[in-house]
């Protein structure tokens, strides 16, 4: 059976690939949404943090023989600490200014990080070696590498955990309260600046996690962050700036839309998400899941 000239098994295969990419977009965009939702900072360093995550994952394996699984935890941790340092040194000073200043500051930091990576490792990326989970599973309509199935599971787990912590736990409620009314929350004896630092660190750690997840299958180089940041912004804007659920749902859906475009009109596959963005913003200016802000 064909659907618009494409056999249904081939279409299912492409949708499956789209689902993998969508889950990956979701986890990559999540950190940006958390940082914007909680801190109101438009964090342009997100793409660079993704690159650093992938780079550390590779470097751990290459220089110190630390395996993938350890680096999958360690790389986000290192990048998270780096993020906290950046927040303490720079971002903290501009919270009272307009959003735009945060964007400019983080853009500047991005250029510095990218420049440093480029000068140390070039722009072509490095060979990673075979993925840590080998083998291929036959789904009937698609022979999918097991590593890609792991990407789906890992992404969804991390997304769910993040949503749960922020929306359903006491820590999350402190955090949300602290962003609504920091003075009042501080009056209850909660260390708000510390919470803000940790949130930023957590947000960039999510980007690094996505990087470490991508390293075995994607050629990540100093310039990859630039491609990624554009996709991530589209996801977050369509989902509704700062909405965690919106970001996850949008990430997955855009992966699927992109997959269909790659089958029917591949030339437009990198543009289609921006078409969706334009359409969504015309109908719902705050994004699909955005609040009144």
């Amino acid at each position, binding site marked *: 059976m064909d659907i618009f000239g494409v056999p249904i098994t081939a279409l299912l295969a492409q949708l499956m690939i789209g689902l993998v990419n969508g889950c990956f977009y979701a986890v990559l965009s999540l950190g940006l949404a958390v940082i914007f939702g909680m801190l109101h900072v438009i964090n342009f360093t997100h793409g660079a943090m993704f690159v650093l995550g992938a780079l550390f994952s590779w470097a751990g394996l290459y220089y110190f023989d630390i395996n993938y699984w350890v680096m999958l935890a360690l790389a986000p941790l290192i990048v998270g600490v780096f993020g906290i340092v950046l927040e303490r040194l720079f971002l903290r000073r501009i919270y009272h200014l307009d959003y735009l200043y945060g964007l400019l500051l983080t853009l500047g930091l991005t250029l510095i990080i990218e420049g440093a990576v480029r000068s140390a490792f070039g*722009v072509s990326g490095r060979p990673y070696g075979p993925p840590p989970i080998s083998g291929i599973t036959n789904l009937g309509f698609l022979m*999918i*590498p097991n590593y890609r199935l792991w990407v789906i599971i890992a992404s969804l787990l991390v997304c769910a955990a993040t949503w749960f912590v922020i929306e359903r736990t006491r820590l999350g409620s402190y955090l949300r309260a602290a962003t609504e009314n920091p003075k009042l929350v501080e009056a209850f004896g909660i260390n708000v600046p510390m919470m803000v630092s940790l949130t930023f660190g957590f947000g960039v750690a999510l980007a690094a996690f996505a990087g470490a997840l991508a390293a075995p299958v994607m*050629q990540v180089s100093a310039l*990859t962050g630039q491609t990624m940041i554009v996709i991530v912004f589209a996801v977050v804007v369509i989902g509704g700036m700062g909405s965690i659920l919106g970001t996850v749902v949008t990430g997955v859906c855009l992966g699927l839309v992109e*997959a269909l475009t790659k089958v029917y009109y591949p*030339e437009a596959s*990198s543009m289609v998400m921006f078409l969706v963005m334009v359409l969504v913003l015309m109908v719902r200016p705050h994004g699909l899941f955005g609040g009144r802000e």
Partner: protein
Amino acid sequence: MKKPIKTGVFALSLLCGASAAADISDEMVKIGVLSDMSGIFSDLSGEGAVTAARMAVDDFVANEDPAFQVELVTADHQNKTDVAASRAREWYDTQGVDMITDVINSAVALAVSEVTRDKDRMLMVTGSGSTAINNEQCSPNTVFYAWDTYSLANSLGRTLTDQGYKKWYFVTVDYALGKAIEYDATKAVEQAGGEVIGSLRHPMGTSDFASFMLQAQGSGADVIGIANAGADLHNAIRVANEFGISQQQKIVGLSASMTDVHALGLNTTQGMLLVEGFYWNQDEQARTWSRRFQEKTGKMPNMLNAATYSAITQYLSAVKRLGSDDADAVMADLQEREFNDLFAKNGHLRPDGQLIHDVYLFQVKTPKASKGDWDYYELVDTIPAERAYQPLSESRCELVKRAGSRT
């Protein structure tokens, strides 16, 4: 303004009993390396091109002891045609630059070629490979030195089809480079008796190629020709490995180079066929020079780096022979010689500006066969200059037509 001053200096020098450097503007030969120092092509060229250029100038001055001074200037064109063109104009107008080289990125090369023609200086393109440079937009002031999409795509297309891989599918990046590669490869495949059963165009900068490569796999082709470059090429090849496509179908990167092999590693690239004009380990001369290059940069030179060294050396030698840096004279001199140096073997400069030279078909070694860092290639075949490049009879260059109508 330039010409009268030059003539004036020439007349004066005749009166005074001229030195050899009399017809050399400002008594200095200035060479500009205009490259991508920080963008997507900076690993291919960038610092490597600058190092190769500096080595060429130093070696020439040390070995030839010329009567003129040689100076090198460098700049980053940032892959922007306007930045490149205005820098070239500034170099020619105010800094006395006589020859520009590298200009990686075909759009940049075409823009600088235009400026060079206006200013009547010289451009030696060692970075870019679009065949428009010596066809539709050919110029009497431009030498197309290192490689072109025709020689790569044509040689690979013909070789694989001859080996019995008859059915081709192309995964092509959706801009000039991809289309040029696909066009040239298609011609070669069809001439060799093969057929192209399909192709798809993907946008530049796609991060996941699984979808495209699965479509290519589904076509049932014998060969999947990947007509793109840089990160796109890397991701396409990695996906082909990950999904096991490369075990059933032949994957060929039609513009792949040693820089790509280095980035991807031998595990991923083993067995791949590539066409290049230079490999650091091809002969004793190459090895000696390459080791010197490696000491300075920490990496082995690629084809483009060697071509930059060769182009500058040939240019300076011509200037020394003539005692003049006049672009027309240098061009005429170079067209009369056979090039045999570090890079160009059996080289010959044609009226369309194309330097034809032998190119080589290499196969990437297995990790086991490789004896260490940078030991990547096994030589499969040498493709003689005349067979490697687009024949003059197919040229779309005005200069060729004019030269043809005169004879």
